[in-house]
């Protein structure tokens, strides 16, 4: 009886030092898939590796032995002894494995729940396994397609991936509600700091065209500008460049307002009322709150952004419940299909047996039928086909109905005996 097994580790089960050993590396994925293909105990396999997790998903008839193969493969991939990471592994079997993969694909198991990258990474992993390395078959192909379907449902039917849960992401989302698109926009980064740079990085990731960097120390400005292929400007030039900028991120250590009401008001006329968005990450604040009262100017400070993030986090928890329900539904659907697999070999054997008998009898009778015309022989042929089909039709239907129910094994057993399916196999061998 074939089992679906998933062995892996994620950000919860393993510390970052350990996950680093298996860091996302295409070469390692190739090695892992080759190992699974070469092992005779493993029928189908997929290997998923991202910066936050590794997963080996496979089907096997020998769960214990296959498990050993996979852990020793992990040990070789990471270059560490199995004892050092065994306690960090989780192992899921059958429906638990299916549920786990569905949750991973739907981004419910991610460090940042709802983050959209994971689905793409899993699709890549599946493509690698199914097309390049050809290690997948009937079960995993179906399983992965259902996982993508579940992920799509979670994305469209819940708001889980809608709301921003980090300050810099919230800032990007706001910018997208102000500007038509972020392509070709100019960002002015005043000051430095991790969060400000992260926000700048996010904005550039969204297509922002150019970045201007101002800092009290021009050296530092050049340093940050080089990091993002931006342009460094002098602190005194801020007023001048305010005319060009669309988004201004401020993060200086200044005690007074760096961006005063006056500076912005003076730039407004020359800006021809183009919207201007201030992201003020500094504490104490760099942008005079009065600036928000100017027309077409929007100022968000760190508290405003934090409020958005908090609201979104609680909203996301509600949506997560909905998402878990969708995953469960999809698992049940997959389960129904998976259970019909047991009866499939018997059905096929039954059909083959009937067809073999029919052919043999047809051949035996042919000499006696030599008087008949071609079309009459064909009519008899058709008659035998429909006769055998009719005879085995009901047994097949009742086998299909029994799939996944108790008493199924008895039914399979009786069918094999009644139609002498196993004897037939013996004769062949």
């Amino acid at each position, binding site marked *: 009886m074939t089992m679906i097994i998933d062995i892996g580790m994620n950000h919860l089960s393993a510390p970052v030092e350990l996950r680093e050993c298996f860091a996302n590396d295409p070469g390692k994925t190739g090695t892992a898939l080759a190992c699974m293909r070469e092992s005779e105990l493993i029928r189908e396999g997929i290997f998923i590796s991202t910066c936050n997790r590794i997963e080996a998903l496979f089907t096997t008839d020998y769960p214990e032995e296959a498990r050993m193969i996979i852990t020793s493969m992990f040990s070789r991939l990471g270059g560490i002894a199995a004892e050092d990471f065994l306690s960090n592994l989780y192992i899921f079997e059958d429906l638990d494995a299916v549920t786990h993969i569905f949750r991973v694909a739907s981004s419910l198991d991610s460090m940042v729940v709802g983050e959209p990258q994971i689905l793409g990474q899993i699709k890549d992993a599946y493509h690698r396994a199914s097309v390049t390395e050809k290690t997948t078959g009937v079960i995993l192909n179906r399983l992965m397609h259902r996982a993508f379907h579940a992920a799509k449902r979670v994305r*469209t039917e819940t708001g889980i991936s*809608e709301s921003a849960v980090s300050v810099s992401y919230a800032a990007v989302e*706001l910018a*997208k*509600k*102000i*500007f*038509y698109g972020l392509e070709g926009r100019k960002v002015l980064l005043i000051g430095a700091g991790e969060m400000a740079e992260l926000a700048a990085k996010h904005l550039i990731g969204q297509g922002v065209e150019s970045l201007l960097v101002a800092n009290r120390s021009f050296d530092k400005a050049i340093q940050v500008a080089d990091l993002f292929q931006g342009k460094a400007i002098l602190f005194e030039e801020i007023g001048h460049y305010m005319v060009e900028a669309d988004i201004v991120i401020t993060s200086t250590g200044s005690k007074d307002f760096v961006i005063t009401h006056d500076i912005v008001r003076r730039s407004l006329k020359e800006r*021809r*009322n*183009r*919207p201007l968005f201030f992201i003020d990450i500094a504490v104490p604040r760099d942008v005079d709150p009065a600036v*928000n009262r100017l*027309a*077409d100017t*929007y100022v*968000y400070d760190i508290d*405003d952004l934090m*409020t*958005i993030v908090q*609201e979104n986090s609680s909203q996301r928890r509600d949506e997560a419940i909905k998402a878990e329900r969708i995953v469960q539904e999809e698992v049940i659907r997959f389960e129904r299909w998976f259970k019909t697999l047991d009866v499939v070999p018997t059905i096929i054997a039954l059909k083959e047996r009937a067809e073999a008998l029919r052919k043999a009898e047809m051949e035996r009778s042919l000499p006696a039928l030599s008087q008949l015309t071609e079309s009459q022989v064909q009519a008899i042929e058709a008659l035998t086909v429909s006769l055998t089909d009719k005879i085995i039709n009901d047994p097949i239907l009742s086998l299909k109905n029994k799939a996944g129910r108790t008493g199924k094994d008895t039914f399979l057993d009786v069918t094999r005996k009644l139609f002498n399916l196993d004897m037939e196999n013996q004769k062949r061998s």
Partner: protein
Amino acid sequence: MADILFAIALFLILLSTGGFIVYIIKQREKVFLLSCITLSAGFIFHTLFLVSQYFTLGVAPVISLKSSLSFFAWCITGAYLVFHVRFRLRVLGSFVAPMAAILMIISSVIPGVEQNINPILRSAWLVVHVMTIFIGNGILAITFISAVMYLIQEGQIKRKTLGSFYKRLPSLETLDSINHHSIIYGFPFLTVGMVTGAIYAQYALGSYWRWDPKEVWTLVTWLGYAMLLHERLAVGWRGRKAALMSILCFLMLIFTFLGGSLWLSNYHTFRNLGAGAGL
């Protein structure tokens, strides 16, 4: 026959209005597609209704408040469908469809006076005059709606109260750009409508301009839109100021339409048109 066409159109537009309202709440793509298809079907039936009216009456079906409201609804729906092809802004439908539906309902409730067609109304100039004015009105209604959406969205971002509309409405620049484009397209229709009206007046009444209250108010509205367009193109007005101005202009336009049609005017009123006493 015409009544059946109108009833089907009204039914479909109401149905799509319901769909669009469900869409703005639930945000389901399928709901939007169904609503959009229903609205398009409603628009087609409405068009058939207007065509059949035109042939039975022999004049453009806009000589009573009843029929002109229905024609106004048709123009708004049409303008929306065209804008949808251009901008793909789904949520706009949730604002447009109810507006069209309300106009249609009012049109279906008030009694119509379609008899006694004054022969003077059977003129191609009148058809062009009324058609262009109403198409202009329809497009300017989109201007108005986008301005309202802009103010809602801008208010939320400015006050930092990101309510449920925040996610559903598009970006400020998108709304501003729709506002901008709809004025650019709507204003020429309004202008052509006024010019052809003047030519028709000369042909039918012997003078281009008669200082009729509706004419005066239309001129005021036209000047409002002209100023808005000028400020937008030359001075760089946009955003909130432009949105407020376009709302003000549209309110003037509605005032002109209703006021001028019902009680202010001498010869532009439907009562006079219908009874054949005016003009």
